[in-house]
């Protein structure tokens, strides 16, 4: 099953043009390591520190983590700020240290700012897991929602397929400093090189605020009347853009929208034809996997060594991948799901 999953990831990765380097790391990951299925301690306390406590996407992920820990007989404390800033997350890390938590699962609002505090937590014996948005600090495991490169490339491919691989396109992102967004956008730019007739004319930032996203989107549309496509790799951005296009049909006819969105939010726009297809993973599963990873690390039944295997409940077994580039040891949830009219109603997140 696990091998199958890995093969599936590999296959998808290859089809979207993944380089040999990455596939070889996947192979290397599977030949070392000792499978440890059980051995998770009971009564663990895991602090979930999302980007902010009020973002619905993060809430779904946190609930996944809660489900994981309740299966394992432990508990999850969700603590974070309300603005997406690293400074707002630091008090939560401190609270975790003071409460002698066993592990911290964090979605970083900034790649570097959290390192001093996370370093403190690590030296206090707390295991660190990052998810959703990675931090560039030592000694932690990153639970990647899907291969970073794969998200970037597949978004471009998805759009290319819909606009005939030609025309001006733009990106509607979240905060200008968001780690995951910038990583994906980087790979999008790489992938665009394989489409000589598609041109990225602009990247705008809506700060994951509907009003701000709409304002920059409107500006984008009037600045680039020839725009053929928009990629919005953020749930707030894509839903705001979809709402606008669905109410301005004449623009929707000219502009194709895709990106990362929640099926529950995007359903009406798929059905009314505003959006043909978009992608996402199940944020609940992401939190669930992060919860299992944190518990396994805290119990010593998993480690940061590449090739270590651990079991994540209903999601079965996962293998720790070795560090590559800016990313330390990581685990990939799986390939993202593409949603369209045929399957969007089957999902409830």
């Amino acid at each position, binding site marked *: 099953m696990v091998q199958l999953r890995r093969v599936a990831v590999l296959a998808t990765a290859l089809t979207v043009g993944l380089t040999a380097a990455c596939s070889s790391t996947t192979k290397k990951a599977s030949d070392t390591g000792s499978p440890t299925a059980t051995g998770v301690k009971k009564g663990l306390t895991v602090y979930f520190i999302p980007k902010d406590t*009020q973002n*619905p996407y993060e809430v779904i992920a946190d609930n996944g983590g809660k489900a994981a820990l309740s299966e394992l007989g432990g508990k999850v404390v969700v603590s974070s700020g309300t603005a997406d800033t690293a400074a707002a997350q630091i008090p939560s890390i401190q609270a975790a240290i003071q409460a002698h938590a066993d592990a911290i699962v964090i979605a970083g609002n900034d790649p570097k700012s959290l390192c001093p505090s996370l370093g403190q937590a690590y030296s206090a014996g707390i295991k660190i897991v990052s998810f959703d948005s990675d931090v560039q600090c030592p000694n932690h495991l990153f639970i990647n929602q899907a291969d970073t490169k794969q998200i970037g490339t597949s978004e471009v491919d998805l759009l290319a397929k819909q606009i005939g691989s030609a025309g001006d396109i733009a990106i509607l992102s979240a905060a200008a400093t968001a780690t995951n967004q910038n990583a994906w956008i980087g790979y999008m730019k790489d992938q665009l090189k394989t489409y000589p007739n598609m041109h990225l004319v602009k990247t705008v930032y809506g700060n994951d605020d509907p009003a701000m996203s709409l304002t920059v989107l409107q500006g984008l549309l*009037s600045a680039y009347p020839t725009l053929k496509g928009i990629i919005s790799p953020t749930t707030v951005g894509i839903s705001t853009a979809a709402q606008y296009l669905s109410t301005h049909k004449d*623009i929707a006819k000219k502009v194709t929208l895709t990106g990362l969105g929640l099926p529950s939010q995007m359903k009406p726009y798929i059905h009314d034809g505003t959006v043909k297809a978009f992608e996402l993973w199940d944020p609940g599963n992401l939190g669930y996997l992060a919860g299992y990873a944190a518990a396994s690390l805290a119990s010593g039944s998993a480690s940061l060594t590449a090739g270590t295997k651990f079991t994540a409940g209903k999601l079965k077994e996962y293998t720790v991948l070795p560090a590559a580039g800016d990313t330390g040891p990581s685990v990939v949830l799986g390939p993202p799901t593409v949603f369209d009219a045929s399957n969007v109603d089957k999902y409830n997140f």
Partner: protein
Amino acid sequence: MTVITAPLVRRMFRAEGLLRARELAIVIAILVVFVATTINNHAFAEAHSVQQLLTGASLIALLAVGETLVIVTRNVDLSVGSVVGLSAYVVGDVFVHHPHTPAFVGFLLGTAIGAVVGAINGLITTIARVPSLVVTLASLYIVRGIDARIVNGKRIDPVNVPHAFTEVGYKTVLGIPYLAIIVAVIVFVVGYAMRTFRSSRDLYAIGSNPEAATLAGVPAGRRVVSAFTISGALAGFGGALFLAEFATVDATGGTGYELSVIAAVVVGGVAIFGGSGTVLGAALGAVLLNTINQALVASRISSFWNQAVAGALLLAAIAFDRWVGLRVNRRMQTAEGAHRDV
């Protein structure tokens, strides 16, 4: 008493006549930005783009109307952004639980929520005689906190907002967006009232000289409470419009609007220390700021420049106002001298 009020009122009327020049200046500024951008990028003048300019400015313009009423009385309302967020979510929540609620009920509810917060702000400010900056800073925090408690990590999705309600956010009549029409009507109604009714003119009297106004028999407390209540009600109504426009809202809706609103009011020529300024000016200020924001994008300037340009512009507007104000003052002094001679 009439001895005191008569010159006061006369003074205000004259001031208003001169201030119309101020509004004209903003209109000219808007046109300059618009034309300059259009030369650069013809798409800026297309119907869609112009509709976007109007829609984008509507919400801040609406809030600026209420804020103007408060600021002319030498007070300030910092809670508007939080009220927008609370009202938008609560209205959305009603639609989630009672999908067949008529659209107008949503707007009424939003307005009522805002009016309650506004009245509380006003009552605390006047009864306890606490500076409104402090009171509304506190209510900014408290209302946002209550909003966060109610929202609790949930979100209103477009599927849950009735079509009849979201139509208000995007439909157009003769090419003019509903939103812009609604806000324009409010601007003109309030603007007319501010010039015509005695009670509204009292607001200016309170703002330009509170002691004199009280001595002249103006019920300052009651008027200030009304100003806050109207500001709150408009912010609450704005929250409902927010939901209609975006069809989605979470706990962060309207965050930081207070500063944009005050910026619009100041650019619109309303004196931050009260006593002068018009709602039309404030609304035009909102349109100007939004036009500049959009123009930057349309001119393909990096979006990283938006804030810097907006800040510089704001300072320029304040300085310009000061310059005009000095000239008006001088003219008014000479005029008053002449009047006394007669």
